């Protein structure tokens, strides 16, 4: 028994060391964000010294160069409203597809499932052209694109959940005189809460980090955070390593905050999403 305790303590120490090593890249970036831009590439592992420490200069220049706060605004706006649109509309669609049986609904359902395995490159050129023709190349229009793109996974997950809801509940509501619309919003929607959180988390994660779609659809006028970070890299002859480090830190902060607040839901959502995907 005593040896087992000793082994376990050693394992905990080993895991602690591993964790520090594992997360060290983030701390190294943080550390470098306070060093002058010419002291980063050559010695990224050196601590800032009196000569190399520049305070928040990198943050100020980076924020100005890429317009960080407008990028943050676009990212927040697009992610929040896309996720809301996906939640409401795909939940409605899924309920209909599950409850109304027929050839049409079956074909529609399997088309949604099919879309999950199609890589983005397959449709990126044609989709961005169509978005252009339809004047969807703005932060509002792109929400429609995200609704269409997020629909596959979301419909799949909602349908799986709705199949498990007993019909008796809805029949009771119908006898009480609920119209289908009332039935959906008053009876079904509250039952969907747990799966909605999963769907919201999964969609929020990919939309927030998405690079190519916003670049191709709205990238020339509106930059989300990933597009803005990449712009810093490509837009200048000699790249400003200091500003890049600072912007990497600023790009990670919202994610850490979100993770801190939603940790349980995120982990549960990831497991549920994986099991179904």
């Amino acid at each position, binding site marked *: 028994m005593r040896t087992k305790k000793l082994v*376990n303590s050693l*394992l*905990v120490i080993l*895991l*602690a060391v591993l*964790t520090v090593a*594992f*997360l060290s*890249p*983030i701390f*190294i*970036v943080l550390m470098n964000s306070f060093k002058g831009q010419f002291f*980063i*590439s050559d010695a*990224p592992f050196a601590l800032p010294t009196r000569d190399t420490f520049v305070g928040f200069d990198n943050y100020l220049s980076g924020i100005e160069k890429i317009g960080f706060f407008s990028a943050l605004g676009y990212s927040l706006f697009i992610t929040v409203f896309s996720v809301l649109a996906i939640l409401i*509309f795909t939940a*409605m*669609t899924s309920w*209909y597809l599950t409850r*109304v049986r027929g050839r049409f609904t079956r074909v*529609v359902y399997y088309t*949604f499932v099919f*879309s999950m*395995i199609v*890589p983005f*490159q*397959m*449709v990126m*050129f*044609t*989709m961005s*052209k*169509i*978005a252009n023709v339809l004047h969807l190349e703005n932060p509002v229009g792109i929400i*429609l694109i*995200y*609704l*269409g793109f997020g*629909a596959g996974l979301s419909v799949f997950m909602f349908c799986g959940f709705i199949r498990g809801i007993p019909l008796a509940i809805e029949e009771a509501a119908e006898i009480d005189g609920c*119209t*289908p619309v009332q039935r959906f919003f008053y009876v079904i929607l509250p039952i969907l809460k747990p799966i909605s959180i999963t769907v919201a988390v999964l969609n929020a994660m990919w939309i927030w*980090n998405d*690079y*190519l779609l916003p670049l191709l659809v709205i990238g020339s006028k509106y930059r989300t*955070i990933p597009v803005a970070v*990449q712009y810093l890299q490509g837009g200048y002859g000699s790249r400003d*390593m200091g500003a*890049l480090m600072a912007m*990497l830190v600023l*790009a990670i902060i919202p*994610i850490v905050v*979100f*993770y801190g607040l939603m*940790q349980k839901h995120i*982990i549960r959502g*990831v*497991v549920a999403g*994986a*099991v179904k*995907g």
Partner: protein
Amino acid sequence: MQKSLRKYGWLFLLPTLIAFLIAFVIPFLAGVWLSFTEFTTVTNAKFVGLDNYIRIFTDNRDFLNAFWFTVKFTVVSVVSVNLLAFILALLLTKGLRGTNFFRTAFFMPNLIGGIVLGYIWQLIINGVLSGMGVDLTYRAEYGFWGLVVLMNWQMIGYMMIIYVAGLQNIPSELHEVAAIDGAGGFATLRHITLPLVMPSITICTFLTLSNSFKMFDQNYALTGGAPGKETQMLALDIYNTFYGSVGNEGVGQAKAVLFFVLVALVALIQLRITRAREVET
């Protein structure tokens, strides 16, 4: 009940269907059609049969090189990510102190987007290599292993969480019975744990496989394909064919169709193989 609901079909279906048609169905069908045509904008397409598909292999070796690079990367990543994630999951289901904290920490990198990940690792790897006076783009092997390290960093925590869930589903009586029967740690792992977490292994293999095969952002940010186009993966090759060269849109679209077929095939084969080995529980 179906009848009363049917009347409202337009309300429940229309918003999602319109978005789905615009964002996916029409672009997909147009994409398949355009792969058989020559075009610069969608409206001036001219049917050319299989020309684009032939040009993929005759114009240059980019696609084939990208294909082999992607395959090699995918094999190495799938094996390393799953092995490490599984070992970590075993350690983190022993009821050790701090288990929750460790799980949280290891999952963290998964939430960071590919572009940001690419630049984080560019800094780290270039820092290490600068000791030898070279950088990431000096040799293709550096880029390859850089991508593998990045992929592991991003995916290990995610896969670990799924393995943990799978391991926790194994009834503890099974381990007790095995211990009474005199099974050692390794025998228990081989004959009880592994067969019972097979569903998790299926899921994780599938996820790492498709994520590695379709990788774009990380590749784009970390190496950009350098040196030359040697570390260019399939998704990046398609992107560059479209946007990095002129007059090759048709070839780009044909590559995209092939890419889609490959992804679909890999997914189907993989699912079939691992499904067959799952234990019914």
